């Protein structure tokens, strides 16, 4: 008797609990997502609303520190009426072009030099003190030299952006090569791989994880390089918009320029994340999640 009735009730029991467990888990997940977005919105309201409130009440002087509603107004003005030089889109295009050229140039140089020095211990030992010295220089100041030497055109901006990008990508590419699994190298060597094949099959793919991770930070620095060089001297670009607003004692337009560049950087970051997901699809998901933070 027992043996025939017991399994039945057990089966019924598990079916019920399984579906209800699943439903409960789904409900909990949904609730967490809602709560997350509510909390995020609340945080933005708290910061921006507080800023607005404090300036409205006069506790903080809007003349010096700007004011969210006025920042919004100057953003609208920038996009509808443009600057005194023309459309804001033209300025965005100029700054973006400088940053992208600098990013590409700096990344290519950084990857090349990083891979080379990473594989050649003697060369890297010779150059390492100099790299450290150059890295210790506040490189933003190089912008002044570049503007003096190369004028107000695109080139000095691209150059400064490239210099900033170079060091970030270089250090990561270098480290990536050094972290290559020696067993893998021995393995392909025993199988008869030439030095070029070792680089193609082991060193470069292995370093790619590090390089791609560095590109996130590097693009932000490309934007900084382009903007700083524009502030130091230029004829077009968001940096010029910002420095002129500063001259007019107009913090709202400075913040508006900041906001524009922040949006652009976020979009670029997103694109790099897409690239990362494609190129590094082999990685275990836990790592990718940690990198996403």
């Amino acid at each position, binding site marked *: 008797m027992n043996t025939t009735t017991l399994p039945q009730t057990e089966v019924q029991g598990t079916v019920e609990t399984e579906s209800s467990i699943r439903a409960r888990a789904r409900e909990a997940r949904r609730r967490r997502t809602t709560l997350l977005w509510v909390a995020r919105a609340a945080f933005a309201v708290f910061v921006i609303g507080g800023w607005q409130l404090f300036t409205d009440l006069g506790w903080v002087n809007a003349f010096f520190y700007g004011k969210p509603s006025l920042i919004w107004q100057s953003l609208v003005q920038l996009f509808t009426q443009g600057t005194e030089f023309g459309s804001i889109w033209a300025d965005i295009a100029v700054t973006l072009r400088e940053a992208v050229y600098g990013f590409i140039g700096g990344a290519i140089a950084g990857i090349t030099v990083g891979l080379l020095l990473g594989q050649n211990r003697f060369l890297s030992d010779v150059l390492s003190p100099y790299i450290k010295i150059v890295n210790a220089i506040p490189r933003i100041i190089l912008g002044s030299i570049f503007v003096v030497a190369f004028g107000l055109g695109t080139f000095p901006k691209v150059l400064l952006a490239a210099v900033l990008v170079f060091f970030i990508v270089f250090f990561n590419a270098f480290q990536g090569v050094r972290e290559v699994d020696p067993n893998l190298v021995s393995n392909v060597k025993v*199988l008869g791989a030439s030095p070029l094949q070792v680089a193609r099959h082991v060193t470069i793919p292995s370093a790619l994880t590090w390089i791609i991770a560095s590109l996130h930070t590097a693009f932000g620095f490309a934007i900084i390089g382009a903007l700083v060089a524009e502030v130091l001297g230029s004829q077009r670009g968001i940096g010029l918009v910002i420095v002129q607003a500063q001259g007019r004692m107009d913090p709202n337009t400075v913040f508006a320029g900041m906001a524009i560049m922040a949006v652009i950087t976020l979009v670029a970051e997103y694109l790099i994340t897409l690239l990362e997901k494609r190129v590094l699809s082999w990685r275990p998901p836990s790592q990718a999640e940690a990198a996403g933070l």
Partner: protein
Amino acid sequence: MTQQHLAGGATAESARIEISHLTKRFVTPTGEPFTAIRDVSLTIEPGQFCAIVGPTGCGKSTTLAQVSGLARPSGGTVKVGGRDVDGITPGVSFMFQADALFPWKTVLGNVMIGPVLNGMPRKDAVALARDWLRRVGLAGFENRHPHQLSGGMRKRVAMAAALINSPQILLMDEPFGALDVQTKAIMQTELLGLWEQLRPSVLFITHDLDEAVALADKVLVMTSSPGSIKETFEIDLPRPRGSVQELRHEPRFLELQGRIWSSLKDEVERAYARTAGAA
């Protein structure tokens, strides 16, 4: 292409390994010279399965590196197929304790790396790799990445990758050391099966005496550091040996195992006393 005609002649003279009076010295990071192995002489006949057992740090792995050509001897000679080893020895495959798989390549990509490095056309390499994955029981896993596999499956991939070139010499450095006991026994049985088909000369390094006796034709016991050959035991268990797990209970196996252990025991104790004293 060279690999193909070597495959037929795995038991040919070219697969003979002769090591005579091999000595290897290193300079430690503190600048002190250190003798890893001293005056090691051994011969592995073509198609023979030879295992080396010895205490930790006795220079077993160093011996392997000399045969593969990854390192040079400080004294003595290493000959493969009658020729002195200078540079990478052709026709050799290596299997390490760590997986040594490419985490960014698929299972298929990992297995076909050997033929690809030898310049085999991609299509042929893929076909050959698929065939080898079938042989190690991983058909259907071609497009997985190593991190998606269990430890035993990763070993199978490494084994297929090591054997796909039909090497005449297979060097194995504690290949199953990191596996759990059951998986280890399964992998050993599979290795024996594949080895009996291809018959490369094998130099197999292990800590595990049971493993050495179960797999090898000949077991060499090395002394504690600096390593040298202490004793050689011929294992006359009949082949094919079948399941390693069952082999373990046979009286002849236990007798050989006991004799080798009595030789190895002193060395292990000596090596242990040294590390314990140093610590």
